């Protein structure tokens, strides 16, 4: 009806491209979908809000400098001490040990799967790596405590390794993040166009040279992303460290002895029965805030690197 005036003037019927009816149902559905998408934003907001309130209260009682630079962590002792450095060093040392394991093993696996393995071999090995990624962390903790420490570490190094130690926790966390390194790195290397490899082969490059000097650098941003993400996971790993690392924070480098990382402290202290409002309750949030900020920075870095390789080749 709307176009009738124009139709008469030009002599042929003009068809309106507007919807015949307003379709409120469609708009309602879109609104509901937006609402669902909003839940993920609300989750992040909720995390920040839940952490920030208690953290601010915590810093009303303990000075920021004492928290960040103190080397004694004993929040439940009398008198209490709130230096978070032992937890931070424990977190970083365990994550560093994990990365020493996961970087070579994960990258080796990724290069093999992407460049060397036949499709049939890939098809059988990838589900095995997925299985490794699917094993619950509490199971890895059990394995570290009951097998890896006594049967392997203590057999190799004897008494220098205590039953609860950072070394076993770190190595097992390393194995746990291998699939993260391997799958993202493999994706990145597979995304390198075949023409680059062909060009390198055409110039007389051997397989080894093509892999290490052409494919690997071309996929570097994806590989860095996988390592940063793996590091973030190692920093945030709770159960293995809680079970196998002992629950005693250590300000030092003795990896044969007990260490505690930030997530393990939160789990050990945050069991549902501590009293709301006590300083111990607030430490959970202050440490949680620190952990959240550290992993947030690493995650954003990793997301940025992934986007970079996607932009170049996809």
């Amino acid at each position: 009806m709307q176009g009738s005036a124009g139709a008469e003037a030009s002599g042929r019927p003009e068809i309106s491209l507007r919807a015949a009816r307003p379709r409120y149902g469609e708009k309602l559905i879109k609104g509901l979908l937006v609402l669902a998408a909003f839940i993920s934003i609300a989750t992040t907001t909720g995390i920040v809000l839940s952490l920030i309130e208690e953290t601010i209260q915590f810093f009303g009682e303990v000075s920021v400098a004492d928290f960040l630079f103190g080397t004694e962590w004993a929040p439940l002792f009398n008198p209490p001490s709130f230096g978070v450095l032992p937890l931070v060093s424990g977190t970083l040392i365990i994550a560093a040990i994990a990365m020493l394991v996961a970087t070579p093993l994960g990258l080796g696996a990724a290069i093999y799967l992407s460049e060397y393995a036949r499709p049939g071999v890939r098809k059988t090995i990838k589900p095995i790596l997925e299985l490794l990624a699917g094993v619950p962390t509490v199971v890895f903790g059990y394995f570290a405590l009951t097998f890896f420490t006594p049967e392997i570490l203590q057999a190799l190094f004897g008494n220098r390794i205590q039953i609860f130690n950072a070394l076993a926790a770190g190595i097992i966390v390393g194995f746990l993040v291998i699939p993260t390194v391997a799958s993202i790195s493999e994706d990145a290397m597979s995304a390198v166009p075949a023409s680059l490899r062909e060009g390198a082969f055409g110039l007389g490059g051997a397989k080894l040279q093509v892999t290490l000097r052409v494919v690997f650098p071309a996929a570097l941003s994806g590989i860095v992303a996988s390592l940063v993400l793996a590091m973030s996971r190692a920093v945030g790993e709770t159960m293995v460290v809680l079970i196998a690392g002992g629950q005693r924070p250590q300000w030092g480098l003795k990896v044969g002895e007990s260490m505690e990382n930030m997530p393990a402290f939160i789990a050990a202290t945050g069991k549902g029965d501590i009293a709301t409002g006590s300083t111990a309750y607030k430490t959970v949030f202050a440490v949680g805030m620190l952990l959240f900020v550290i992993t947030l920075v690493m995650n954003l870095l990793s997301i940025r690197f992934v986007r970079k390789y996607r932009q170049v080749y996809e």
Partner: protein
Amino acid sequence: MSAHGEAVAPRAEGIGRPTSSRRAKDIGFRLGLLACLGLAILLLGVLLVDVVTDGVDRLSWDFITSFASINADQAGIEAALTGTLWLMAVCAAFIIPVGVATAIYLEEYADNTKWYNRLIEVNIQNLAAVPSIVYGILGLAFLVRGPLSLGPVILAGGLTLGLLVLPVVIIAGREAIRAVPPSIREGSMALGATQWQTIWRQVLPAAVPGIATGVILSLSRAIGETAPLIVVGAATFVAFNPEGLDSNFTAMPIQIFDWISRPSNDVNDYRPLAAAGILLLMILLVAMNSVAIWLRNRYEQKW
């Protein structure tokens, strides 16, 4: 792509005639790579053998149908098993509608050039990598105490796990929806269907296998999560099955953790109990993953 590279390699070697030292290096490198992969698989193998030898004697029908007990001989996992099933039900009821709706919005409606849509996307990627213990704090501060004050009950635990694995569902759902070719949508729209009719009747049915696979994999991640449930306040000594959403609970990984951390002695050895619990958990996981793989292979469509 690698197949392509391999096809080219022999020809290049034929022309270049690699020296023997170069060949040796090549073989050495290849063996090194295999060793990396082998070591990872070996550890997985040793872990499985260790758990099976520790726990297989203790895994029995009695173990599945007994409640917690300070007496290691009589303890079982029934309360934890039913608790886990309840948690998974709550988790699934939350992640399926919310996850699929978010995936549909991001793939079918969202304009990628708008900053808020990009924010949602980066936000989801980040949430996928937030440590699970932080979700526990969120659950404790918002669901168990604070605004909702549900207490340490099934509903709070299930929702916490749901929030934790939601990003996984969304990412898998988006991939499944993206795999449906645009021609299907265009055909449907050209026949006069509205956007939602197109999504509901054409896109979603085609994407269901991929979405279902993603949901099962998310649940299999949620089922083994321990840390957030510790913080949310799952109990460790429960001698009853949950009766509803507002019931206190324990879960399999929590029960396993409790058995691991108890000091064992000659009278009460809790270690076989922990191993048997792990075995049962792993059996559940393998079953879920098999269903996911079967779904993927059976219904995967090549367009």
